[in-house]
């Protein structure tokens, strides 16, 4: 069953066609990779899917929590998050001067059930909800093994852990679709391996559909069931990892010329 669908989307920045006529369809529970050389338009696609940019043509449909496909054309990013799709950012966008725990607690905002008045007057509902949110946030941090750093400022975490915290924060919004923008960027091979396991684990545990952008071919080939390949804003190939690895167009896009063997 489809949970995320892009129909013929294009976006133009001035004279530049950043993405043209892209079709994307992702089924429930899939783990799909989106790859391509630098500047191919991968992050632009993420920004369109999450409502940061509006496509100049085409439409995007997302399954909401009740199982209905919603056109996101008129929605703001926060409303799209409320439909159940969360994301991380390539250039880490944590709330740097807040604690690790607060970063995750803020992402629980959509599920908070007390109003401002109840918060200011410290009514029992506020206390209960805060307790629940804190416990759930700690639980998520535990999965990613950064629970012991809950009181540190986000900016003081090592790079790899900042990337992890981005994922934790996205999970705290309780999504069913997760978009990961280069989750392994800046990680060493050992950390990347751990991350691969973690991504698989959270997909099963939270019943997620995952779309990820990645440069690390080992990670992409290792965990993605299907891969979309972009070049200059156009889809040049799609299919299972083995097919992609042997696709001459893909090899050309990555290495600049045709290779005789499959690199």
């Amino acid at each position, binding site marked *: 069953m489809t949970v995320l669908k892009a129909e013929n989307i294009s976006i133009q920045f001035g004279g530049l066609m950043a993405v043209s006529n892209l079709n994307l369809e992702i089924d429930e529970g899939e783990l799909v990779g989106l790859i391509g050389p630098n500047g191919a338009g991968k992050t632009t696609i993420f920004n369109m899917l999450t409502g940061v940019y509006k496509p100049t043509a085409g439409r995007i449909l997302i399954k909401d929590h009740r199982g209905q496909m919603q056109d996101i054309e008129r929605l703001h*990013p926060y409303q799209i998050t409320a439909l159940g799709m969360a*994301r991380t*950012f390539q250039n880490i966008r*944590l709330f740097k001067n807040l604690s690790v725990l607060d970063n995750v607690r*803020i992402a629980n*905002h959509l599920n908070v059930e007390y109003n401002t008045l109840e918060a*200011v007057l410290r009514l029992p509902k506020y206390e209960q909800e*805060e307790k629940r949110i804190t416990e759930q946030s700690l639980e998520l941090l535990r999965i990613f093994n950064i629970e012991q750093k809950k*009181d540190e400022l986000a900016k003081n975490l090592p790079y790899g852990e900042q990337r992890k915290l981005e994922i934790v*924060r996205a999970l705290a919004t309780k999504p069913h679709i997760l978009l990961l923008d280069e989750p392994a960027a800046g990680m060493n091979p050992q950390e990347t391996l751990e991350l691969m396991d973690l991504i698989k684990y959270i997909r099963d545990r939270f019943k997620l559909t995952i779309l990820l952008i990645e440069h690390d071919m080992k990670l992409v080939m290792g965990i993605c069931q299907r891969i979309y390949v972009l070049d200059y804003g156009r889809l040049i190939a799609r299919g299972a990892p083995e097919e992609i690895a042997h696709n001459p167009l893909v090899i050309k896009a990555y290495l600049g010329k045709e290779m005789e063997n499959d690199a």
Partner: protein
Amino acid sequence: MSKKKTTVTSFFVVVVVLLLLTIMVRYRVIDEYTSQVLTIAGINVIVALGLNLISGFTGQLALGHAGFMAVGAYTTAALMMKFNVPTFLAMIGGALMAALFGFLIGLPTLRLRGDYLAIVTLGFGEIIRVIMINLPELTGGPAGLKGIPPFTTNFQWRPVVSFAIVAVTMTLVIVFLSNLLKSSHGKAIISIREDEIAANAMGINVFYYKIFAFTISAFIGGLGGALYAPFFGYLSPNMFNFQKSVEFLIIVVLGGMGNLTGTVLAGIGLTYLQEILRFLKDYRLVIYPVILILVMIFQPSGVMGLFGNREFSLTALVNKLIGAPSSRPKSEEKAGEV
């Protein structure tokens, strides 16, 4: 010790401190001059706290809080003098009017990113002042508005009542802001300052929370003005000029953007400084900008930045004094700094 007990104890500590201070003012342990300065300081702190909410916590620079103060002050005075509304209700009316202005200004400007709010609020502050000058039948025009009824007609009690009302209002504002900012709604406000795009992606309605914070900020600014009117008994448009708006900004910056404790300390400190330096005449106006420049160069995070930007927490203090182990993490401690 249970959480509830801590809260109750803290509440009593606050009440006792306020009562003691009031009694000290009544029996001249704190002389009339000092209590007068403290009352003015309290009003300055209130307005600066309002400014800190939008500029320090939400990250949107606003340069016209004297304007909101003017709206609050003149509305209160008009309600009391023209419509014989009781002081307390007139003050609420003044603050609500300022909030309405804040809402209307925020609606078009807060949609935009960047410093548009600073420019528009700066203009607003000046426009309000000019309108006040040109509406003599309502405001007394440039000569000012005289004969605003004071808090009490009893001459003996006047400084005491003024002091008590301002002190209680300031305490309420602090508790309100402190509780708000620790809640998820307050954290949403702070996340906008940290990263607007990320906040949006985390499901936070950025525009709503900006408007919300700015309206509350204007309300608190108006409340400061509402206290001003019956306390001084006289209002003139030039009391609320651009200089005044900048003074509030300096209080916020000196105390630390996004720190309530710092605003309270800096507000009291700078009000005192201004009184002490009266002998310098107009030259004292130079002192504020000099302080601002020095702070920006040497301590941009303000006074409280020296203490890791922590907030003073009364409940933590109560827990410590009574010797109860505080198992809760710092970020969850109860409100109530005074």
